[in-house]
C-alpha cells in the first residue's frame, strides 16, 4: 500500500458511526478528516482536497444529493455513499447524480474497505489502463475489441463491448441501469430495460463460468450492475 496516505473525508452526523469509520479507516492507514454537516463537508472538501468522500445520505442539515452535485461541479473526486436500506430511490438518485458507489448501513468492515479501495484505485488508474480487463481466464482489450479465452478467440457483439466498457470505467462500482442504458443504447431508450437484461444475460453466458451464479457481472437489484474484476 504505497498510496496509503490517502485522505478520506468522512461526512456523517452520527458521532458513533463517525468514530467507527475513523478507527477503521485509520487502522487501514488512511488519513481521516471528519465533517458532521453538509456545510462543514463542503468547507473541508475545498480546503483539504481529499482523495475520497464517504458521505452519509441522511444528513440533518442538507440533502446529501446537493453535496454530490456541488462537489461534482468542481471535482471528479470519488464519492462513496452510505445509506440505509429504505432509501432505494435516494440511492439511485445519488448514483445517477455522480456518486461512484454505495455501502448499505449496517455495513461490515471488509465490505466498506473493499468499496473504498476500489474507488481509490479507479481514481488513480490511467484511462488507457481501463481498457484492459481480466475476468478469470478471460482477457479483454476493450479498446481493440478483443476477447481471449483459454479455449481461443471469443466473439462479443458491439453492444456487449459497449456495456463492458461502461461497466469497466466504473470497475468495482455499481453503475445504474439508467446510466448503462443512456451510454450504451442512448437516452431515447431510457425506461426500457429489456434490451439491457438480454444483453447482460448474453454477456454472462459468454464470460461467466456459471451464468446462474455470476462472479464478475453482478446484479445490484433495483439499482444496476457492477463489474468485479479479480483483485490482484
Amino acid at each position, binding site marked *: 500500500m504505497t498510496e496509503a496516505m490517502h485522505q478520506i473525508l468522512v461526512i456523517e452526523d452520527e458521532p458513533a458511526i463517525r468514530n467507527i469509520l475513523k478507527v477503521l479507516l485509520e487502522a487501514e492507514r488512511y488519513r481521516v478528516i471528519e465533517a458532521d454537516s453538509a456545510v462543514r463537508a463542503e468547507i473541508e472538501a475545498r480546503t483539504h482536497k481529499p482523495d475520497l468522500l464517504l458521505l452519509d445520505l441522511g444528513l440533518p442539515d442538507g440533502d446529501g444529493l446537493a453535496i454530490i452535485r456541488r462537489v461534482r461541479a468542481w471535482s471528479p473526486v470519488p464519492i462513496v455513499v452510505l445509506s440505509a436500506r429504505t432509501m*432505494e430511490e435516494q440511492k439511485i438518485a445519488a448514483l445517477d447524480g455522480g456518486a461512484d458507489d454505495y455501502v448499505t448501513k449496517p455495513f461490515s468492515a471488509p465490505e466498506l474497505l473493499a468499496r473504498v479501495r476500489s474507488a481509490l484505485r479507479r481514481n488513480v488508474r490511467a484511462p488507457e489502463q481501463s481498457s484492459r480487463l481480466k475476468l478469470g481466464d478471460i482477457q479483454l482489450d476493450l479498446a481493440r475489441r478483443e476477447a481471449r479465452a483459454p479455449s481461443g478467440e471469443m466473439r462479443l457483439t458491439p453492444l456487449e463491448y459497449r456495456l463492458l466498457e461502461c461497466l469497466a470505467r466504473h470497475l468495482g462500482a455499481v453503475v445504474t441501469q439508467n446510466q448503462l442504458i443512456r451510454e450504451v443504447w442512448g437516452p431515447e431508450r431510457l425506461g426500457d430495460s429489456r434490451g439491457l*437484461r438480454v444483453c447482460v*444475460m448474453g454477456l454472462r453466458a459468454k464470460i461467466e463460468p456459471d451464468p446462474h451464479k455470476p462472479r464478475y457481472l453482478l*446484479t445490484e437489484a*433495483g439499482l444496476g450492475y457492477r463489474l468485479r474484476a479479480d483483485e490482484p
Partner: protein
Amino acid sequence: MNTPADTRPDPDQLLARVQAEEARAGRGRLRIFFGASAGVGKTFSMLESAHVAKGAGTDIVIGYLEPHGRMETERLAAGLERLPTLAVSYKGIVRQEFDLDGALARHPDVLLVDELAHSNITGGLPQPRHPKRWQDIEEVLEAGISVWTTVSVQHLESLNDLIYQTIGVRQSETLPDRIFDEADDIELIDLPADDLLARLHAGKVYVSEAVATAVERFFRKPNLMALREIALRRVAERVEAASRAMRPGGGGARIAGDHILVAVGPDLQAEQLVRTGKRIADALAASWTVVYVETLALLRLSDMDRNRRVAVLRLAESLGAETVTLDGPSAAEALLGYAQTRGATRMLVGAPKRRGWRAWLRASTSTTLIKRAQGFDVMVVAPADATKRRASPSRLPGAAAQPVIRWDRYGWAAGVSVLCTLLAFAMYPHFELSNLAMVYLLGVTVAGLRLGRGPSTLTAVLNVAVFDFCFVPPRFTFAVSDVQYLVTFGAMLTIGLLTATLTANVRQQTRVAGARERRTAALYAMSRELAVTRGIEGMARVAVRHVAEVFQCRAVVLLPDVEGKLHRPSGAPAESSLRGADLAVAQWVNDHGRRAGLGSDTLPAAPALYVPLGDEDRATGVLAVLPANARRVLLPEQSHLLDTFASQIGLALDRARLADVAPASSLAAERESLRNTLLASISHDLRTPLAVMVGAASTLAERGEALDAPRRYQLAASIELKAREMADLVSNVLDLMRFQSGQVEPMRDWQSVEDLAGAALQRLDERLSDHPIELRLPPDLPPVHVDAGLIVQVFANLFDNIAKYTPPATRGWVSAASEGGFVRVVVEDEGPGFPPGDPGQLFEKFHRGSGEGAIVGAGLGLAICRAIVRAHGGEIEARRREGRGARFEFTLPAAESS
C-alpha cells in the same frame, strides 16, 4: 267486551311508554293552571304557588305575564325575578313578547309564562322562531327547564267546535290537545259562575275597551256555566286517562281493536270532523286515523282547497291522529277497503252535501258508506253551521295562484269553426245538408279531444250557430224553417260537451299517473345513483343535484361533524348549490329532527326550507332547499316527495358513514393486534441478541488485553452476527409496516427472474454456503414486470428460510414456467418440510414453523413475501413437496410468452 284477554298489556304500548318516559328524563316538567275562562284566577294562583316554591329555594323566574295591569297580580309578581320581554315591531306597532332565547340563556329551574295558547307575531321583527307560544315552551322544556303556564278551556283545539256551538264565540288561538294531555300537572282553577261575575263587576277582571261588547256577550251566566262544565269534564277525562294508564297491566286498557276512521274531504267541514273524531276517540279510548281520499275529482280542486287538506291533516296529527291519504277513483270504495284492512270499528263522515236532483242522480260518499258498511258503524256528523267563516287556518305562502285560462286555445276553437265552415262551403253544392252537419260534428269532436272543455264548448256553440246561419234554410238568417234541425243542433252540442269532458278526464288521469310516475322515477334515479356513489361528500353532491332538478330549487346538504356541528360542504360548490343557507337554523333542525323554515312550524317566513335527513330522532344532516317557487316544495304531494327524498338521502348517508367507520375500525383493530404481537415478539427476538452483544462487547472492553486473539475475534464475530440478525429483524418489521400502511408502491421494471434470483443468492452468499441452491430456469422465460428490489427480497427470504430451517447440505432449487400473463416461480428444498397443519398459516404475521426457538426472524419473512407478491398482483402458496421437503410457489406478472 272488556275481557281480560282484551286488556292484556300491548307490548308496543309498553315500549312506547318506556320510550316516552325516557324522552321525559332530562326534560322540564310542564304545569298548567287551567280554568274555564279568563278571570278565574289562573295567573294569580300561579304566582301564589311561585312564591311558595321560591320560599322553598326553587330558582323560579317570570318569563312573561300578560299586561293585564291587575293590581293583585302585579303585587304578587313584584316579589319575583322577571325576565325582560322582547320588543317585537309589526307594522309600526311595538309589542312586548316572551323572549325565548333570553329564557334559555337564563336557564332557571322553573319559568312562568302566561297564556300558553298565545300566537306569536309571525311577520314581526325580530322574527319569532315559532308561530305559537306552546312551541316556544316545548323548546324551553326540552332544554330541561320546567314551565308553569296558564290555559283557558276554550283554547283547546278539540273543544273548539263544541265551544263555538255552545257559546257562539270562535277562538282563533288554539292549543293542541297533545300538549294539554302530556302536561305533567294540571291544576284546575275553579270558580263558580256567580263568583266570577261578581269579580267582573268588581273590576277585578281585565277588560279592554275595544272588546268590551264581545266580552259582554261572552261573560253571561249560561256561557260561564257551560264553560265550567266543559273544563271540569275535560280535566276529569284526563284524570281518567291517567288512572287508566296507571292501572297495573292497564297500559293498553283500551278496548281491543277499537279503531275510528275519520273520513275527510276538502270541504270546510273537515276540521270539525277531525275535532269530533278526537273527542269520540278520547271518549272511547280508541286509536283513530284521519283518512283523505284523493279522487280524480279532488285532484282538480283549486290549490287553496288542497292546501286546506294539508292543514286538516296537520291538525289531525297535532290532535294525535294517524293520517293516511288514499288514492282511488271513488272515495267510498277506497274508504270501505281501508276500513276493512285496518279493522276499523267506527267511521265518521260528514253529512251528504248534495241536495235535490243531484243527490238523486248520484249517491254521495256518506250515503254509499252507510249502505255498504260491514263490520263497522258509520257516524254521520252534521255540519256546525257557518263553518265557512273561519278562514283556512294556515294558508301556505305563494299558494294563491289562479288557474290559467289558455286564451290561445279559444282562438284555436274559433279556428276549427272557421275551417269547418270553409270545408262546408266547398261541399255545399255537391252534398246534402246532413253531411255538412257531419263536418261540423267532426270539428266539435276534434276540438273536444285537443282543446279542453271550455274551448270545445265554444266550438260546439259556434258550429251550431254558423251551421244554422250559413246553411240551414232559410240561409243567412238564424231562423230555422224545419224543426228537425233542432235535433241536429242538440246532438252536436251534446257530443261536443261529452267528448270534451271525457277527454279532459282522460287527460287528467294521464297527468296524475304521469306525475306519480315522474315522482317515482325521480326518486328511483336518485337512489340508484346514490347506491353507486362512494363517499359522503360525493353522495351529498348527487343528492343536491337531484333535489335541485326535481324541485327546481337550489339546495345544499349540510353534514354534521363528529360533535354534531353542521358544516358547509367543502370543495367547490356546484351550480345548484345553496350558498346562503342559514347554519343556525340548520343546526336547530339537525338537533330537533324537525323541519324549519319556509311553510313549516318554525320560522315559517324564512326564504329556505330546512328538512332533517334520516330518522326523526337521529338526524344525520340537513337538506336546505331554496325553491324558485314556494309551491314547488309546499304543495302536499311535493312536500311528501321532499320528505321521501330526505329520508332516502339520510339512509344513503348512514350507509356511507357505516362503511367509512367499519374498515377504519377493523384496520385499527388489526394494527393494535399487530402491535401487541410485535411487542411480544420483539421482547424475545431483540433481547436475546442484545444480551449477547452487551455481554461480548463489555468483555472485550474490560478484559480485552487478557484475551488471546482468537477469543477476541470470536467475541467480535458474535457481536457482528447478532447485530446483523437484529438489523434483519428491524428492517423486516419496517418493511411489513410500510406494506401494511400502503406506503409502498412497487417501482416496476422489466426484469429477468434469473437476475433476481441470482441477486438474492449473491446477497445471501455466506449464509447459503452450506445450502447449495440451484437455478433451473428455462432460457426462453419471458421477463417479469416487477420491482426488482422487492422480488429479490422475496427470493432472499425464501432462501433464508432454507438456510434457517433445514439441516446443512440440504439442496434447494428454483424453477419457473410461463403461464399466460404470469410467470410461476417455484422455490423448493429437500429438507424436513413443514410442521403439521396448514402450511398456508405460515404466511400469517409472526407465525413460525417450529414454535419460539433460537431462530431469529420473528416469523415475518413469509408475511413480507406474501405482501410483496400481492402488491404485484400475484399470489404465493406453500405446499408439501412430493416425497420430502417444502415447496413455495408464487406468480409474477410477465410479458406473454412468445
